[in-house]
C-alpha cells in the first residue's frame, strides 16, 4: 500500500513537472478583439483553424526544433458602443504580461484603439498583425517612426482601398449601363461618412451627378424619406455605406417601394448566406463590395474554395462577414512563414521577414507596402483582392473584378 502511494506521488510529480514544460513549448498568439461581433468571432475561428492545421503538420519549424501554436483569445469589446479605449488597452497588456503571448493577430476593431495599441506593441516588442480596423492613419503612424512602430502590420483592407473598390464598381456600372446620377446614403459614423465623402468627391470629378448625400444615425430603421428623395431626383444608382444591423431594412424598403435605381455599395449585414436566409428575395439585385475575397468560394481562385470548405468542415457554419476572416487565417500562415524564414522568435528578425513577405494567401498574393499595409489590386495572382458581388437568386455572383468575375450585373425588374 505504502509503495503504491509513493508510486502515485512520484507519478503525479512527474506529470506536473512535465506538463508546464510542454505547455511552454507552444508559441502563444493573442487575439484581443471584440469576440461577440461577427468579424471578431469569425476572425478568431479562422485563426484557430490555421493554428490547428499548422499543429497537425507538426507546428512551426524554428531551426532544428518544432513548436506548436496556441491561441489566447480575449474579448476586449472595443467594437462595442460605450467601451472606452483604455479598457481595450488594458486587455492587450494583460495578454502580453500575464499570458506572455508572442504576437497578436486579428486585433482591434476601432481605429483609435488600434492607433493607441501600437505604442504598447512597440513598448513590449510584440508583433501585431491586425485584420479589422481600417484607418489609413495606421500606415502614417508606422511611417512616422518606422523603428518604433515596426512591430505593427495590417493584413486587411483599409478605407482608401475600400473607396478605390467602390470607384471601380461605379466605373463598371457606368460602362455597362451608361448611368451617371447617384444618391449616397451612409451610416453617420466616421469611417462611413469619410468613405462617403471620398466617394462624393470622386464621383463629382468623374462625370457623375450626386443628387443627395444622406447620413443616418446608428440604429435608424426607416429609410423611406431618403428613398423617396432619391426617387424624386431620378437617380440611377443608390450607393449605401453601412455596417449597422438595421441597415438591411434599407434594401427591403428599396424593393418594397420599387425605387427605380440600382443599389450598389457596402451593407455589411448583407454579406453572407444568413442575409438571404433572413431577408430572402428582398435583397435580390443588391451589389455589395467584399473587403477581402475568401469568405465564400470563388471558382476562379481555388484557395478561396479550399478555405471555405475547411472552415465549414471545422466549424459547421459558413462565414458571414466579408471582412476579417480570410485575412485572419492568412495572418497565422504568414507569421509562421516569417518565423521559419527568420529561424528565430526574435521579433526584430521576424519583422524583417514579415516585411519581405511574398506568399499566396486566401485573399490573393500577400505583400506589404512600406507602411506595413497589405497591398490590394484587381488580380489575386498579383495582389490581395476585394470584389463586388450581386445577390442573384440566392447566389453571391461576383461581377467585378474581371479576373475572378463569374456573372454580369442584372438589373432588378423595376429598374429601367
Amino acid at each position, binding site marked *: 500500500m505504502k509503495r503504491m502511494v509513493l508510486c502515485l506521488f512520484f507519478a503525479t510529480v512527474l506529470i506536473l513537472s512535465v506538463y508546464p514544460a510542454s505547455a511552454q513549448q507552444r508559441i502563444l498568439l493573442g487575439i484581443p478583439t471584440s469576440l461577440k461581433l461577427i468579424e471578431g468571432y469569425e476572425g478568431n475561428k479562422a485563426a484557430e483553424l490555421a493554428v490547428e492545421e499548422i499543429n497537425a503538420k507538426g507546428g512551426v519549424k524554428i531551426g532544428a526544433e518544432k513548436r506548436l501554436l496556441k491561441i489566447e483569445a480575449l474579448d476586449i469589446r472595443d467594437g462595442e458602443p460605450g467601451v472606452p479605449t483604455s479598457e481595450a488597452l488594458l486587455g492587450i497588456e494583460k495578454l502580453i504580461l500575464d499570458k506572455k503571448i508572442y504576437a497578436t493577430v486579428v486585433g482591434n476593431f476601432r481605429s483609435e484603439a488600434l492607433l493607441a495599441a501600437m505604442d504598447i506593441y512597440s513598448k513590449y516588442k510584440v508583433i501585431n498583425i491586425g485584420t479589422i480596423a481600417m484607418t489609413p492613419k495606421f500606415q502614417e503612424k508606422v511611417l512616422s517612426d518606422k523603428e518604433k512602430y515596426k512591430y505593427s502590420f495590417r493584413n486587411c483592407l483599409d478605407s482608401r482601398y475600400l473607396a478605390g473598390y467602390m470607384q471601380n464598381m461605379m466605373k463598371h456600372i457606368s460602362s455597362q449601363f451608361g448611368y451617371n446620377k447617384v444618391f449616397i446614403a451612409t451610416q453617420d459614423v466616421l469611417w462611413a461618412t469619410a468613405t462617403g465623402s471620398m466617394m462624393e468627391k470622386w464621383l463629382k470629378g468623374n462625370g457623375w451627378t450626386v443628387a443627395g448625400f444622406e447620413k443616418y444615425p446608428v440604429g435608424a430603421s*426607416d429609410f423611406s424619406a*431618403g428613398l423617396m428623395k432619391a426617387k424624386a431626383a431620378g437617380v440611377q444608382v443608390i450607393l449605401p455605406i453601412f455596417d449597422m*444591423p438595421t441597415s438591411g431594412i434599407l434594401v427591403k424598403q428599396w424593393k418594397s417601394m420599387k425605387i427605380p435605381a440600382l443599389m450598389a455599395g457596402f451593407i455589411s449585414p448583407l454579406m453572407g448566406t444568413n442575409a438571404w436566409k433572413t431577408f430572402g428575395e428582398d435583397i435580390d439585385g443588391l451589389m455589395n463590395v467584399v473587403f477581402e475575397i475568401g469568405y465564400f468560394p470563388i471558382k476562379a481562385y481555388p484557395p478561396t474554395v479550399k478555405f471555405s470548405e475547411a472552415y465549414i468542415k471545422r466549424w459547421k457554419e459558413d462565414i458571414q462577414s466579408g471582412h476579417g476572416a480570410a485575412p485572419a487565417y492568412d495572418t497565422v500562415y504568414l507569421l509562421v512563414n516569417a518565423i521559419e524564414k527568420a529561424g528565430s522568435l526574435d521579433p526584430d528578425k521576424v519583422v524583417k521577414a514579415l516585411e519581405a513577405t511574398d506568399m499566396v494567401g486566401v485573399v490573393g498574393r500577400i505583400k506589404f507596402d512600406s507602411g506595413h499595409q497589405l497591398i490590394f489590386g484587381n488580380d489575386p495572382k498579383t495582389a490581395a483582392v476585394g470584389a463586388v458581388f450581386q445577390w442573384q437568386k440566392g447566389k453571391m455572383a461576383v461581377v467585378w473584378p474581371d479576373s475572378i468575375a463569374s456573372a454580369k450585373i442584372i438589373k432588378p425588374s423595376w429598374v429601367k
Partner: protein
Amino acid sequence: MLVYGLINSAVLAVMALGFNLTFGISGVANFAYGAIYVVSGFLTWTLINHLDLPYALSAILTIIIIGVFGGLIYKLIIRRIRGLVISEVIATLGISIVILEFLRYVGFIGFKYSLPVFIKGSVEIFDAYVDIQRFFIIVLGILLITGLYLFTHHTKIGLAFRGIAQEEHTSLSLGINPDRIASFSMGLGSSLCAFAAIVILPLGTITVDSGYDVLINALSVCIVGGLGSTFGVIIASFIIGYAQTITATYLSPHWTIIVSLCAILIILAIKPSGLLGHQKELEERV
C-alpha cells in the same frame, strides 16, 4: 410624404398605446416598456426559429407570456414602491437596462433577428409604393383602439380600470382592488407592447438598441398627448409622426429622434399635462 407620414403616425400610436394604458390606470410610468418591446420581438423569433412553432401561434403565445411577465414585474417589484414616483422610474428604468444588457450579453446581436411580414408585396398609392405590412399597422391600430374603447367602457374589468384611473380611494370603497387592477393594467400594457412589436418589427430587424428609441417615442407621444389619454395619444402620434417625416425629408433623418425630444420639452414648457391630459389638469392648476 403624406402616405408615409400617416403610416409613421400609426406606428407611433400602436407603439405608445400600451405605455399610455398602464400609466393611465396604475399611474406607473413603465420605463421598461422599450425593453419589453424588444424582448417580445426576440421571444417571437425564438418560438418560430427554435421551437418551429407557426407564426400566428408564436405571436399569440408571446402576447400572453409578455402579459404575464408585465403583471409579475408589478407584483414582485412595482407594488412595493407604488406611489413613490421617483422610485418607480428608477426601478422600471433599472429593469429596462438589466433586460436589454442581458439580451446583449447572451448574444442577441446582429441582423439575423427579423420577423416575417404577414403578407408580402406592396401597392401603389399616389405614385408611392407602400408595403402591405404598413397597411396592417394602420388597420390593426384602428381595431386596437376600438377594442380598447369597448373593453374599458363595456366590460366589468374595463370599468374597474376606469374607476381606478378616476379615483382610486373611492374605487377601493366599492370593492375594487387597486393593486390587482394595476397589476392587470401592467400586464395588459405589456401585452399591447408585445402586439406592437409583432406588428411593427416585420418592417425591420430586432435589435437591442431599438429598445431605447421605442421608449423615447412612446414617452414623447404620451407626454404630448397627455398621459393617460387615448385620444391624446392619437393626436400626438399624428403631430409627431408627421413632424418626423417632414424632418427626415427636408432636413435629415438624423434629427427625427430630436423631434420627439423637442416635443417633450415644448409641451412641458407650455402645457405640462399634455394636449388632452384632463386627469392631471386640475392637479396642475392647484
